[in-house]
């Protein structure tokens, strides 16, 4: 069985800070990492491979330095890595990204299982997974926290806000995986040494993928960033007063207004 795990190299947004004077991002010292839930997807792929055999291919669209993320995935146990890198891919929104990834996966000869992270911590869109499933024409289940495979049929648990669903689907299929699914492994020291060995990583350009320039990158992206700005800085807090019934009612109303209740 061939399993493809698309992954994204992201800035570790948990360490991003705002310069309070200029209102801009401070990026010095912010490391690039494999998107955390993509690691959960990779861990799930590796455990399926351990149980049933097959190969795990990781694929990423990004700048040349995304090679680091792919090498790390190989060190964790992926058999092969493909880096889609070309100036023409830059500026892609989720539609163009899914189109590019889907075309590349078809070029690989397809696969039985695609495992994605639920969402990336820089964009938080959670869109590329379902869009890739549509591009590949396979069924999808999002927010998957558990996967069982039997005779080419997957039984998965899909998280809902108020519980979960048990869903059955015949492969090929695409699942987006949450952090509840597992705890990603750390690579062994020896694997870290050997992940730089020959034959583990291929770089594909626009011509290798075989798409036209109009369908990828900024050109192939219907959405445009019109402007960016810093969120409103926290103002002075509000003291609630009145009887205890009044204050808790006032608090509940404010929490509901911020979608916290």
């Amino acid at each position, binding site marked *: 069985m061939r399993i493809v795990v698309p992954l994204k190299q992201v800035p570790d947004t948990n360490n991003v800070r705002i310069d309070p004077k200029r209102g801009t991002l401070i990026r010095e010292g912010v490391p690039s990492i494999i998107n955390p839930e993509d690691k959960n997807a990779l861990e799930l792929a590796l455990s399926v491979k351990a149980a049933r055999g097959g190969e795990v291919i990781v694929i990423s669209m990004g700048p040349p330095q995304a090679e680091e993320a792919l090498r790390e995935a190989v060190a964790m146990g992926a058999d092969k890595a493909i880096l889609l890198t070309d100036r023409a891919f830059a500026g892609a929104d989720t539609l163009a990204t899914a189109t590019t990834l889907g075309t590349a996966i078809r070029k690989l000869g397809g696969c039985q299982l695609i495992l994605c992270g639920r969402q990336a911590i820089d964009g*938080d869109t959670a*869109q590329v997974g*379902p869009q890739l499933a549509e591009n590949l024409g396979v069924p999808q289940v999002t927010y998957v926290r558990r996967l069982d495979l039997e005779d080419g049929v997957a039984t998965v648990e899909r998280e809902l806000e*108020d519980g979960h669903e048990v869903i059955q689907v015949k492969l090929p299929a695409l699942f987006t995986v949450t952090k509840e699914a597992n705890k990603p492994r750390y690579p062994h020291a020896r694997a870290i040494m050997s992940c730089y060995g020959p034959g583990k990583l291929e770089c594909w350009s626009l011509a290798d993928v075989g798409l036209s320039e109009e369908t990828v990158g900024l050109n192939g992206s219907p959405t445009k960033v019109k402007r*960016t700005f810093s969120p409103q800085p926290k103002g002075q807090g509000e003291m609630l007063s009145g009887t205890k019934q009044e204050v*808790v009612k006032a608090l*509940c109303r404010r929490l509901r207004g911020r979608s916290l*209740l």
Partner: protein
Amino acid sequence: MNLKVILDKCDGCGLCAQSCPFGGIVVEGGKAKVLDVCTECGICPESCPTKALDMGGVAVGPAEQGTAAYRHILIFAEQRDLKLTRVAKQLVGKARDLANLLGVKVKAALLGKGVEPLAQELVAVGADVVFLYDDPKLANYQTDAYTKVMFELINAEKPEIVLFGATHIGRDLAPRLAQRLATGLTADCTELEIDEGERLLLQTRPAFGGNIMATITCPEHRPQMATVRPGVLREPDPDPSRRGEVVVKAVKVTDADFGTVVLQIIKAAKQAVNLEDAEIIVSGGRGVGGPDKFPLLEELAGLLGGVVGASRAAVDSGWISHDHQVGQTGKTVRPKLYIACGISGAVQHQAGMKDASCIVAINKDPLAPIFQLADYGIVGDVKEIVPAMVAEIKANWMEGKL
């Protein structure tokens, strides 16, 4: 590469370099220079006061997709267990405001089994037309079947805007649909506005973990699609006398349209998670009064779907175990909501929780430093306020926030 520096216009001010989240542009020899790490995210041209950064041609949609052929706003009216989600009503309310600016109608797509009574509820909050798809096959949300129905409806009706709640269902359906329609989709928006001149939907959302806000448009493709975070838009008061049209639609899905089968739906509160992953934390300090009062906090946390934390004072007193401790010698947390109960707010405690998005402080001492940090402060006894809050939530706020 699409991003170009127009050297004649560039005065080397460096604002672009400051604005870039990726370190993709620098000033060298008094002029901006684009580096290889540039992802062409489109942020820097906005920052340039002399308009010296050019992103090149914008994407060209399929020629037949003339945007003028698309009119009206369509809402995916998500329901669960035959109840409209609150976000569906919030979307209709917002769509009403936007539609009035555009001079168009608000239409809603209602899918499910036995959902006909919900149509009037949609009309009451502002829908002009409700497309009703009532069929046993649509009883439970299923990606393929719902996508097929919505795809055909959008192709027939040609709405200029389609909105979904950013729920686990909306965020499953909307991207699948956007890819099939080959149009743009913006995720998890927190504000929607209209650029009346350009007739464009301005979709604002947080990015980079909420560190910056971005306004996204979809200029050349239709429909313009967005998912919207539940709870950020106002829910309109229903007007039961409001009139609208209910259009009963035939459901043309067959078993072959289902790529997945829902075997079981289990309703349950989310399992308790560890402090670092928790979205809501109810934390107790010395002011809680003793170990026998921590169950009050647990009850509140349970109702909110959160977990219990503690200050060092409470842990050192032996009221609760160390794995609950938040602060410099405990855990650093970043929840959406942190309720500090009887915690004075020493610097060491603040170090572990100051990045919570919303902080509520309850303390008897009005001068406690925790109030300097709080979004909402209540001066009072935890032993009285927390039970009152539990009672209030049980009485009036159990409906759920979807």
